């Protein structure tokens, strides 16, 4: 496996620390006078999500992590795995529930997600920032209720539950921000 020297450290670099794939979040070069130089680095473990600080002697090297972020289309789920496809190459990948994580509630067939591969295996899935999903279940709103700021829960076709304004009806398409899980707007056909 390739390795990186501290000279090459920068935000976004994917490295292996204690066999776990990690990404450099912050990198600071420190060097007192004519002494030993160091790199003080903030690292996020891509498997556990934890952030740690590490100090490296300048000139030390670390193993590169074979981690790549690729855009893939969500195909379907067979109950155990979630299947994705790279559009240009038709290459397919199966992500388990752990890798899919929170994204599970936003996955809609044909949508493009960012899949992080580690050694060519899906490590995590990032849904698109915005998704358009159909409301499959919600209480009917009272006509003319646009003035009130009230909200009600609505279940979407993926199973996700979001709070929507009272005037939004069952069967309507809504736009949701996947990062906050919040309703953004209705989608007009």
């Amino acid at each position, binding site marked *: 496996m390739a390795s990186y020297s501290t000279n090459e450290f920068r935000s976004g670099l994917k490295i292996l620390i204690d066999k776990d794939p990690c990404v450099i979040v912050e990198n600071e070069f420190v*060097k007192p006078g004519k002494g030993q130089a160091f790199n003080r680095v903030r690292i996020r473990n891509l498997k556990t999500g934890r952030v740690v600080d590490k100090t490296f002697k300048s000139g030390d090297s670390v193993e590169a992590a074979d981690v790549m972020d690729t855009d893939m289309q969500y195909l379907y789920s067979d109950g155990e795995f979630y299947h994705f496809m790279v559009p240009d190459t038709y290459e397919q990948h199966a992500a388990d529930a752990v890798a899919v994580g929170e994204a599970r509630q936003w996955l809609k067939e044909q949508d493009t997600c960012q899949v992080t591969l580690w050694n060519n295996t899906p490590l995590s899935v990032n849904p698109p920032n915005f998704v358009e999903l159909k409301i499959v279940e919600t209480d009917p709103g009272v006509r003319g209720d646009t003035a009130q700021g009230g909200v009600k829960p609505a279940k979407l076709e993926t199973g996700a539950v979001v709070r929507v304004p009272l005037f939004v009806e069952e069967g309507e398409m809504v736009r949701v921000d996947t990062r906050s899980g919040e309703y953004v707007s209705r989608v007009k056909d």
Partner: protein
Amino acid sequence: MKPRSDDWRPSAGLDVLALRAALLGRLRGWFADHGVMEVETPALSAAAVTDPHIHSLETCLDRRPMYLQTSPEFFMKRLLAAGSGDIYQVCRVFRDGEQGRRHNPEFTMVEWYRRDLDVHSMMDEIESLLAVLGAGRRQPRPAERITYRDLCMEFTGIDPFVDGTAAIVARLNKAAVAVPDGLSADRDALLDLLLATVVEPAMPAEVPVFVFDFPASQAALARIRDGDPPVAERFELFLGGMELANGFHELRDVAEQAGRFERDLQRRREAGLKQPPVDHRLLAALDAGLPECAGVALGFDRLVMWLAGCDHIADVLSFDAGRA
């Protein structure tokens, strides 16, 4: 063809470039008033610095390896030995593997040598130069002077001459500084880390601090004064939490200098680093006789950073390494 990005532009603002020009003018005027002659020495040399922590850039001239200077010191000492009198230089120096908020692989050094001055008179001189350069812009407060030992004690509670590696590691951990694996036995490296991560950031922003009487193990090319413990006649100037200058009472003893080069090479061997060619011409100049003198190397870009209130060296360089 559409250009890829805006990186053809300079990294510093034009106002900062104007500041640099004004400062250089003042600097030259100050040296002229003090009878210090400007010199220019080669950027390329057949020899390179042996310090294990400084990495020279190598190039090829007529298929011979040549090294870009990391400091004009060796050439300037040869001039001094030839009877040049007091000299100064403003030049680019080059260092591999140094890049960050305060480091650019090439930067501008102001380096000068004064006969018959000791480190304390040199510090006086630098103070007066800072006042001239900062006038009308950002005036430094009166400088403080402190020994390396007192500095460590004050900011970290560690006695750099007495405390063992375990104590230094404990102090670093207390400051939430991760210690790299394999460093716990290297006392000097631990002290370096302590200085860079705990002491430097805590230094006052407006007060120049001169740190002198360095540990003998960090003497570089300074002479060592006997004592208990022996100390190096070396000082550093800190301002705004940055190391701005490094000064020595210069070592004149050729045998001692040759010995230090050898020890450096040995440390490089042990660390698996390249063995650069030793500067025999410098040794020959020392043999012919270097006058009693003190020398200073000042990082001009960092001084501009302080005067302009910038926190990244790219903001004071016409083009930082990323745009070169």
